[in-house]
């Protein structure tokens, strides 16, 4: 096929159009990352040092990483499962038609609902004096907090995060499941496969890259969250983002360079996550390309 030749003038215009994006990326992504990198290796006096990086191994920092990773992984996996099952129910099930747009609109809103408003919404429903907590008490006679639940704990934070995690999964998985070709299912059936065999050997494997990729996306989504956790637990949970906040603007602990090093650690973890994501994305695209 002949390449389409764009006149040079037009091409320059295209670049010009992208200039705001490049400027934005330069000032708010590349320069901050670079300075983060440099500052992580700089002593307050301005010399090169590995002290901050070494500081990452000092308690409670490893624990904070572990907690952040734990909450992110837990909510990504649970949100991923919930979201996938809901997406399956919404596409394959015989639910009424109007339910679909309604659910997707809700998911669109919910997946973007985070930060302080989300925290307060949960405090007023699942907090110690929250509305749902009271309902459990009055209707079922169960005291959630006596039963071991606490909104300001790992589980509480996870439940709060799930509020935006599973809708995001739903939003991604509905089109993915709908992208499964009917003829794959029919080919499998005519070859003697039961519906379960079709899902185990064809449907789920085809969805797996985008499924895992989205779970990684959810992981990153939760890993970087700060405002929700801070507003909800007020620093009672030692997430790595809360630690960084404390180091950079705190009064007692203040050690900005250690904060930078911790942020660099986060960047590294996010980079690995994104690499995994793009690898899975490519695998999925390659499979689905040219196979009609």
């Amino acid at each position, binding site marked *: 096929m002949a390449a389409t030749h764009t006149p040079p003038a037009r091409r320059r215009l295209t670049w010009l159009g992208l200039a705001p994006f490049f400027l934005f990326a330069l000032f708010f992504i590349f320069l901050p990352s670079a300075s983060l990198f440099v500052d992580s290796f700089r002593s307050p006096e301005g010399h090169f040092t590995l002290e901050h990086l070494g500081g990452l191994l000092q308690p409670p920092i490893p624990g904070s990483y572990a907690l952040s990773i734990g909450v992110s992984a837990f909510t990504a996996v649970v949100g991923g499962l919930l979201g996938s099952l809901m997406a399956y129910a919404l596409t394959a099930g015989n639910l009424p038609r109007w339910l679909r747009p309604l659910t997707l609109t809700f998911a669109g809103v919910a997946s973007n609902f985070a930060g302080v408003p989300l925290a307060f919404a949960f405090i007023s429903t699942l907090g110690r004096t929250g509305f749902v907590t009271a309902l459990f008490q009055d209707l079922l006679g169960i005291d959630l907090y006596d039963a071991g639940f606490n909104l300001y704990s790992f589980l509480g934070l996870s439940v709060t995060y799930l509020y935006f995690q599973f809708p995001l999964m739903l939003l991604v998985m509905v089109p993915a499941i709908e992208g499964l070709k009917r003829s794959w299912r029919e*080919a499998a059936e005519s070859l003697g496969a039961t519906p379960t065999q079709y899902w185990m050997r064809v449907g789920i494997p085809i969805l797996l890259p985008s499924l895992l990729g989205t779970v990684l996306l959810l992981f990153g989504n939760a890993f970087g969250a700060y405002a929700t956790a801070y507003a909800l637990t007020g620093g009672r949970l030692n997430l790595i983002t809360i630690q960084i906040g404390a180091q950079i603007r705190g009064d007692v602990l203040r050690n900005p360079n250690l904060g930078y090093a911790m942020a660099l650690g986060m960047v590294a973890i996010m980079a690995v996550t994104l690499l995994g994501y793009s690898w899975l994305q490519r695998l999925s695209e390659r499979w689905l390309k040219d*196979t*009609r």
Partner: protein
Amino acid sequence: MPFLQLANVRKLYPNAAAAAVENFSLDVEAGEFVSLLGPSGCGKTTTLRMIAGFETLTAGQIVMDGKAIEEMRPNQRNIGMVFQSYALFPNMTVADNIGFGLSVGGSAKAAIQQRVREMLALIKLEELGARYPYQLSGGQQQRVALARALAIRPKLLLLDEPLSALDAKIRVALRNDIRAIQRKLGITTLYVTHDQEEALSLSDRVVVMNHGLIEQVGNPFEIYNFPRTTYVAQFVGTLNLLDAVVVEPTAGSVQIQGQPAHTTSLAGCSQGEQIRLALRPELLALKSTGQADENRLAGVVETIAFLGAVVRIQVRVGEALLALDEFNNPQLAVPAVGSPVFVYFARSSCLKLL
């Protein structure tokens, strides 16, 4: 007892105004290759999908190998299906695709491997077992799809426009391969296509469909040479349609554009009746003289087109335009556009249509 029997099959989709398939009855013998031919939307796919079990019947029965199958689930019917879109599983290698049916059926690994090798040899892709579908051309993918369908030793093979996503050269090569493989295995086959050439060249019998109904069933020779309806005649090959008036039914004499002619198929007609005659372009000849019992119409050459092996000449006869084909050769004396000519044709090549 025919191997496959469809009796008064009807399909009315929910909320559809008209039935997609209506009063469809067809017997297919074991080992036969039958094509369903018709334009888009005439119900070919629907018929095939009912046989495969992907659509329910609104009415009628389907019997295969002595058993009623319309209540069976698709995965119990043991029918191989090849789709227009190949429908290979993208997450599996070619070998795994071919072995899928045996694998879900619980066959032993060694038996599966053996069968996959046989199938790869059958489609002449021995080298490609380890590839993924996205690493194959369209033609190769469709071969694999055929092998996958045949690997389970189905009782019946269904193909729904398997070649229409491929380009012309591969289409012809692959259709010949499909037919050769079908003959070799002796498998009863139903083949859906909207390409009349494909249907005529491949099939033992052709079923011409129109708006969910069967127009005519016959072998390619019958369908082409003795179309029963205008619809079939027009759909299968190029055809001249001529309005005529019956002059003397018993003698077979008619008038075409005011000129006398004869046909051999006037049974049941009355004098003065308006009828429609069909004439194949290749059965007409431009000559200065002919046999006494040949029909002769006078006309004027209107256009001449070289189509390679044949030259198509259009002759205006009164109101009507007649297309006729002459085999091309260097000695061919092509008349000039605008010159008066005589068109000759045998009485028997002039068919009255229903």
